[in-house]
């Protein structure tokens, strides 16, 4: 066998030797690989095939979908016969939704973490444990509760406005008149965008606070003492010491946040259901509807492959950005 020959030889034998030496590694991977081959990789490959067929509900039993080429992709991008469907608008909305959310999550998370990092702050432990609640609750439950809270007549938000003597009959989730409308880039934000944004900020910032808290606690005290000697103000300490020191932890957390928010199914689906007029639909909720309501499996496959490509591009870009802004590992 190649493995027992002591002298290294070029070409095929070396590959064989490497394979043989990796035999233990392959053995360790084998169970996971077998399972994943059947239930993860095969469905993915099957999805690619389905994307080129007219697979619909009726083919579940008859099993003879026809090959339709790129028709599904063209229809997904160009327009499906669903009311208020526009791939471009959904993509623009999804992007705006992601970046507004993550910006607010990170800002609020860092602000609260910095406030809670003050020495001998009264109530620190209580705040820290209570602030985790929105993150700890299943997002599906939070989504449904927020949907209930935005109810036009009996929801908690309108009741609170009434108690404060303000007009408490706002149609948070039904109002179709857009608040922001920029047709040049296809951006339409109805009132329900702000409702679902508040819900997602509510449940999103504690994650960033936790990451920031961990990072803040690892900043050496001497840096602040040195700054004090130099007469630095509070703002200077924040901008020159605190933020640069927590950046290595916040950058990957922000990337996780971007991916999680881009695909935040539970909040969109349960708070607004994508409405009104499909204006708050994001890609994952639309993809779900294609399978669940329409039963267009071929179209849904093409749709999901396109979404997957978009996610890959976003990952690449965020990776680039995070590496470009990373002076600490050099």
């Amino acid at each position, binding site marked *: 066998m190649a493995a027992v020959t002591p002298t290294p030889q070029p070409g095929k034998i070396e590959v064989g030797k*490497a394979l043989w*030496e*990796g035999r*233990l590694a*392959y053995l*360790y*991977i084998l169970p*996971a*690989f077998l*399972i*994943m081959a059947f*239930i*993860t*990789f*095969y*469905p*993915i490959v*099957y999805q690619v095939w*389905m994307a080129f067929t007219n*697979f619909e509900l009726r083919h579940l039993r008859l099993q003879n979908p026809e090959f339709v080429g790129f028709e599904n992709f063209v229809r997904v991008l160009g327009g499906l016969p669903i009311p208020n469907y526009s791939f471009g608008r959904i993509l623009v909305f999804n992007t705006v939704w992601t970046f507004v959310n993550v910006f607010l999550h990170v800002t609020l998370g860092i602000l609260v973490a910095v*406030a809670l990092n003050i020495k001998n702050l009264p109530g620190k432990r209580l*705040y820290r444990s209570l*602030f*985790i*609640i929105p993150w*700890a*609750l*299943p997002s*599906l*439950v939070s989504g*449904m*509760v927020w949907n*209930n809270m935005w109810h036009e007549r*009996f929801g*908690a938000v309108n009741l*609170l406005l009434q*108690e404060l003597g303000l007009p408490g009959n706002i149609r948070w989730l039904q109002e179709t008149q857009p608040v922001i409308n920029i047709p040049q880039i296809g951006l339409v934000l109805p009132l329900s965008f702000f409702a679902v944004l508040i819900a997602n900020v509510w449940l999103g910032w504690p994650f960033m606070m*936790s990451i920031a808290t*961990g990072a803040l606690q690892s900043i050496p005290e001497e840096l602040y003492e040195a700054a004090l000697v130099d*007469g630095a*103000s509070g703002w200077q300490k924040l901008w020159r010491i605190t933020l640069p020191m927590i950046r290595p*932890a916040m950058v*990957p957390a922000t990337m*996780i946040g971007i*991916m999680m928010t881009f695909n935040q*199914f539970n909040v969109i*689906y349960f708070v607004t*259901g994508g409405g009104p007029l499909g204006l708050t639909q994001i890609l*994952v909720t639309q*993809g*779900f509807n294609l*399978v*669940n309501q329409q039963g267009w499996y071929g179209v*849904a*496959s093409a749709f*999901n492959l396109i*979404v*997957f490509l978009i996610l*890959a591009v976003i990952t690449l870009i965020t990776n680039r950005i995070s590496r470009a802004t990373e002076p600490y*590992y050099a």
Partner: protein
Amino acid sequence: MAHIQAHTSPARRASVSAGGVMAIGWTALAILLSLGLVVLGLYVIAVRPAASDATSAVPKVAGGLVAIAAGAIILVRYSRVARAYSRERDVRVLRETMNADLVQAFLLIVLASVLFPVLWILSMSLDPRDFSRPTGLTIIPPGATLDAYARVLTNPSPNPVTFLQLLRNSLLVAAGTAALAVAVGTTAAYAFSRFNFPGRRIGMLGFVLVLMIPPGGTLAPLFVLLTAVGLRTSLVGLAIAYTSTALPFAIWNMKGFIDALPFDLEEAAMIDGCSRTQGFLRVILPLAVPGMAVTALWGFLTGWSEFILAWTFLSDPPTFTLPMVLRGMVGQYAAGTSWAMFSAMSIVMSIPAVMVFFFLQRYLVSGLAAGGVKG
């Protein structure tokens, strides 16, 4: 030394006078605010609507008393600070008090916004009114009762399924897939962490790609394939679908964890005559138990509240999971469900998740942070 002092003292004096005006203004504002609170409290207690009954009068009086108390505390605090300032003419006391109170005010506002939905849902779950909706905000509604919880536990859904069946289904699928994924995933993670072999890079790339698939991203093929093999409407089929995302996640997570364990330990064991596998079983595995527990519980939390696959695949009520029944309590499916029942079900479903989360919070955060920072 002398010139340094000469340098710093004018600068300090300048900053004191700049911030000093703000601090003095803030103190005046706080005293005014406290007086306003006291007056408001007295007003609320004194001027009651004539036809008010006992149930609406009690919260009003309580609210008035709270306002008076808060006003009194702020008044005492700031009059003491103001007196100290007039005695010593040192603006630092004012500034420190202002900064501390602004931070507290900010945190209290955040706390109120965090607790608002939680208190709302707790309050509604105690509401005795069946189908009429709440008309005002109360922390404990008049005639509070645990009736909704009793109904959720005995008869959670119009479908023929008991709460125990739902609980069992949710637990089986969530815990089962998480445990299986970690058991199979740990060995694979060990290989990816410790061995260098042909195909390693491609394998890792494959994982990254699979991890990028959004929730429900392979819904269509899984639906078709599981239907074809006749498993789609069963819990086994659902478990297979869950494992297809739980396993890559578990491998990725465990690889990060094993990467952080020092290689010296295994090396020492191998010098002592352990084989590679013995090193894995006796050295790495015991050390990896916390990582395995966190990965499994993370997977459990995901499965516990998974909705997309369960809602799409399952059609037979005895196989339903808790999120599906909760979904049935809102929106177009909610005919015949009171908000009290929905609230009670939300809380019942959240309790295990929140408990697991609080118990594991330290590890979850440190794991995420370590994994993230390492890149």
